[in-house]
């Protein structure tokens, strides 16, 4: 295994003539160093989240105490109670969940249809449309942001959830591409067999293609949920009534004129993060697969 940080092992030249295992003690030392480095790496990334959780469970006197400590002197739920007092946490959670759920529904309905047209229907438009899908993925969202806002404004839909939900029902280029790549790997024979049996094209799609594409569709659904759940820009543009806020924009209520209610804010942050964390733990293999799809295929 090559490492960037490890110094060049001097034992290497001795190994050249007679390849053999390194002496056990040297090997063990090297292995210990590897454990230390990789655990340190994981801790650096984890640490901020630990401080979030610990602050959420601290008493105010403990929150505003220098030097900071990771372990609360006394564990308390007071910040959570305070958070629920200051902002309608349940309402915001429900709003965020509704938008995310509808976006997932839209993605799951629309993206596989389009992906099927790109991967398995032999028609003239498949190639040009694929190029269009890829091109739209490259376009900075800032270019279309203003006219899209003006369209929704003209339709009187600013302030409703429609601008946050409807686009998902029209297919997201990245997910269309992801599912198309998956479908390319599905043998045509499976689909042809159903066609020969006289199944309509849509029936073939619904009974053969959709079940096969399930892993790719689940990956798209998970990512869509995460995007919608954590989205900041779109709720910021389109939501203007406090009762419709998502948590992303509702959290700012903890910022006062001169002070910040750090304890309750961190408590609300914990609640906001938990559903995403849960989804991550349940669908980890889809995450890892989805992240790699874009880069390696």
């Amino acid at each position, binding site marked *: 295994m090559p490492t960037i940080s490890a110094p060049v092992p001097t034992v290497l030249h001795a190994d050249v003539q007679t390849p053999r295992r390194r002496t056990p003690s040297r090997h063990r030392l090297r292995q210990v160093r590897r454990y230390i480095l990789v655990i340190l*790496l994981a801790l650096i990334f984890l640490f901020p989240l630990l401080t979030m959780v610990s602050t959420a469970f601290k008493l105010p006197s403990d929150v505003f105490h220098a030097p900071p400590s990771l372990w609360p002197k006394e564990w308390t739920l007071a910040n959570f109670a305070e958070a629920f007092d200051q902002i309608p946490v349940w309402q915001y959670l429900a709003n965020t969940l509704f938008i995310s759920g509808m976006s997932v529904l839209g993605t799951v309905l629309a993206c596989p249809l389009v992906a099927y047209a790109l991967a398995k229907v032999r028609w003239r438009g498949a190639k040009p449309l694929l190029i269009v899908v890829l091109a739209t993925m490259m376009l900075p969202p800032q270019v279309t942001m203003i006219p899209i806002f003006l369209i929704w404004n003209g339709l009187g839909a600013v302030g409703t959830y429609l601008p946050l939900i409807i686009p998902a029902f029209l297919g997201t280029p990245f997910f269309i591409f992801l599912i198309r790549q998956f479908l390319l790997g599905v043998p045509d024979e499976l689909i042809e067999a159903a066609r020969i049996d006289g199944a309509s094209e849509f029936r073939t*799609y619904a009974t053969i293609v959709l079940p096969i594409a399930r892993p790719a569709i689940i990956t798209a659904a998970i990512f869509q949920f995460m995007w919608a759940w*954590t989205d900041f820009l779109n709720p910021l543009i389109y939501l203007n009534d406090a009762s419709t806020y998502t948590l992303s924009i509702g959290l700012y209520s903890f910022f006062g004129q001169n002070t910040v209610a750090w304890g309750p804010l961190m408590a609300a942050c914990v609640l906001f993060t938990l559903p995403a964390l849960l989804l991550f733990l349940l669908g980890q293999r889809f995450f890892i697969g989805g992240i790699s799809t874009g880069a390696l295929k």
Partner: protein
Amino acid sequence: MSLRRPASAQTILSSARKPGGRSSRRALWLGLAFASPFIIGFLFLFAYPIAASAFYSFTDFNLFQTPRWVGLDNYSQMFGNPTFWQSLGNTLYLTVIGVPLAIIISLAGAHLLNFPVKGQPLYRALVYLPSIVPIVVGGYLWRWLLNTQYGFLNYFLGLFGIDGPAWLQEPDWTKPAILLMTFWTVGGTTIIYLAALKDVPQELYEAAEIDGAGAWRRFLNVTWPMISPVTLFQVIVTLIAFLQIFTQPFILAQERLNTPSAGPGGSMLTFAMSLYQNAFAFLKMGYASGMAWVLFVLTLVITLIVLATSKKWVHSANN
């Protein structure tokens, strides 16, 4: 949408192979039907908005009156506006420092995660974990970590005898603070690198080892060329993300709910934030549309430059 198809293998094959004729027209309708959600989406969310945005960029438009044609006024105004240059400078600062460092951190992290140790999936999950945290939560969390009185960062620096700066109050330190926060979420890039490292054929390392190459030589001569196509992809994706950076600086500088704050001395106002400010706070829709096109052209030119240099450093399987 149940388009019935004659159930003979003959027609299926001919529809698949032969261009023209009835069956290919059927296939065309079929393709259009299945692709229709995206075709509608493309027209309303891409094609029309792109054309409209280009048009608005040549108009004076404040949302309440009809757009008034002003030619290149928006663009000349932009180039004479110090805020435009400052936001561009801030964005380029973050990009020029951020992209190489993000790549180096991800690659180093991937190397560590690739060690043959027990619990690899756990360490990998922990490194990726910050990337699933809502970005707003991450932003507020970093404001807390960067707090000069009660934050952990300056406390840790203090342990090493370093007197930490007032990160979010001193103009010189706000951008390093933004970068720190973005480096915390390089988990996705790291995992892509990890997959690339696992794809490098083991024989190449064995061959290099027999040639007496040390760890650093093996990295330079085997790993780096073998993963260079992935590096190209990562550089471009990271580059685009930094050029469009919005939420992280917005949250770290936030002083009001829905208008971007520029931070001390304007040091945190990025291009995308300034664009948002012009569009939705000042309602200068034409000017903001012009800024969007400047951003697009900038992104395109930088991406093309990276692609043009890539022939020199990206190893292809053919040669």
